[in-house]
């Protein structure tokens, strides 16, 4: 590939680099491998002689136990519902706000955008006390919306940031053409802009998905009844209940993690791209 003369890199350094990258890959993969194997082992194997090997006997009953008595099915469905709703709400609100900010000319549009961008630096902890007090007074704790509303709010700023990036790419000529055809501002948004925002949907969706799926602090503080627990809180509860039985805990960890990892294997570039979009512009 290098047709011109350049200094050859030192082969010894190349080997060291290769070993370093290899070891770092192992350090990254080992905990994931470890989680998978102990989810299928009995205590005897985990505590005995077969700590890091593949399971001798594949104990799928750990999974039935985690899913059944461990309630992981419920927690999984809860997480899925809360996450999906939060993404949908924040995305819709973000696209509408973006439309008003980037495609309609008015004096305070820049300022409004800057206002929304404050949310990128504000930590989740900032609002937890008042939100908790208000929600508990309104008897609004322990519902799905207890989490959906704050999650949507906290996903909003990033969603607006990413959507703006995509929306300014759409030529204004399209809006003007639509206007000439008799489309109002509303019509233009729903018929012209929304269909063109599909790439933004996946980028924002991926970013918000991870934020909501893995969120722990609000979920831990706001949800005390087991019916509405999401996966992270469920896992904490489960590990408290099965302190001596590692297999089912391992199974629960796998259930919470592997769906994401499997999707990641197929969509790694897309997922990486959405993280880059979320940070580089911010």
């Amino acid at each position, binding site marked *: 590939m*290098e047709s*011109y003369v*350049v*200094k050859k*890199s030192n082969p010894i350094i190349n080997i060291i680099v290769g070993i370093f*990258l290899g070891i770092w*890959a192992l*350090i*990254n993969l080992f*905990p*994931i491998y*470890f*989680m998978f194997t102990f989810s299928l082992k009995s205590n005897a194997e985990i505590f005995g002689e077969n*700590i890091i090997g593949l399971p001798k006997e594949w104990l799928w009953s750990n999974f039935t136990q985690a899913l059944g008595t461990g309630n992981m099915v419920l927690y999984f469905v809860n997480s899925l519902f809360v996450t999906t709703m939060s993404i949908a709400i924040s995305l819709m*609100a*973000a696209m*509408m706000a973006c439309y008003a900010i980037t495609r309609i000319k*008015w004096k305070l549009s820049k300022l409004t955008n800057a206002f*929304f961008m*404050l*949310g990128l*630096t*504000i*930590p*989740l*902890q*900032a*609002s*937890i*006390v*008042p939100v*908790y*007090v208000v929600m508990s007074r309104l008897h609004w704790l322990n519902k799905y919306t207890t989490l959906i*509303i704050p999650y*949507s*709010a*906290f996903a*909003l700023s990033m969603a*607006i940031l990413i959507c703006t990036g995509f929306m300014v790419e759409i030529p204004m000529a399209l809006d003007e053409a639509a206007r000439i055809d008799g489309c109002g501002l509303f019509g233009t948004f729903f018929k012209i802009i929304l269909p063109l925002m599909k790439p933004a949907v996946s980028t924002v969706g991926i970013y918000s998905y*991870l934020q909501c*799926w893995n969120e*722990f602090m609000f979920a831990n*503080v706001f949800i005390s009844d087991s019916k509405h627990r999401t*996966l*992270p*809180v469920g*896992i*904490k509860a489960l*590990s408290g209940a099965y302190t001596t039985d*590692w297999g089912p*805990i391992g199974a629960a960890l796998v259930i*919470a*993690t592997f769906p*994401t*990892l499997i999707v*990641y294997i197929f969509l790694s570039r897309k*997922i990486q791209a959405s*993280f*880059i979009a979320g940070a*580089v512009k911010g």
Partner: protein
Amino acid sequence: MNDDKRKKKEKKKADIARGLTIFVFLLPGLLLFVGILIAPIAVSIDRSLYDWNGFSPGTFIGFNNYVELFTNGSIKFMTSLKNALILAFFSVFVQLPLALLLALLLGRAETRLNRAYLSIFFMPVLISTVVIGQLWLKIYNPDYGVLNRFLDAVNLGQLKHIWVADPKTALGSILVPTIWQYVGYHMLLMYAGVKGVDIDLREAAMLDGATKWQVDRYVVIPIIKPIIRVSVIFAVTGSLKTYDLVRIITEGGPFQMTEVPSTILENMLFLRNRYGMGSTISVMLILLCFAFALLITAAFREKDE
């Protein structure tokens, strides 16, 4: 004359319609944003000046909460702040250099192997911190954990610890997974920057006889500096906000030695019913996050000049 009036009227009508549209389109976003973020912060600032249990109206005490936060040792705020800053220090000086090194190495050539490495190194970012905490708890387990067993196997049994409960190693046991989890994240951001460096620029430098390391040092790193700045800000504010791993791995123990601001905040609400003090901690967190973000930005600007 009449025509002019009609035009004006129409324009006014159009302006009102436009204003209404803007309002309607902004409404859902503003409701969420103001309702859940901005208004609560305003309330937090106000309530941080009260002795308040969350239900009664509370008593106004001025800045007493702030003073107490720094002077009352039993609240452990100083400990928590120290821990957060230790986490921030190691994130900036261990995690980020490691991430930068990986990004530079992987950015040199777009081979299949490098792509695979990139994808593997990013994997931990996708895993919930709670899962990672549980996983490392199993690794640290004093009797059955992989770590102590490994030390036994290589005849270093004297290094064995009850990692999570030993005052000497408890904070470290939180630090290691924190660094482990997010190296991949920063690596990815920096990698994107490295890939954005003009290929011609690299080749020109190499033709001039620069080694790969020199190209990285004198060409690539200066160009990706803005990304490094973002990473430093994320690493520091992220450390200030730490909650999950502490809650899962040590619960703030032993003897509250590993508390962080967020766990103290939660303790104020649920163990002590001190909502005013909880608000004070919230406000301190916001202030610290913004202050560090500004400080880091200023430090990077200074260096450029």
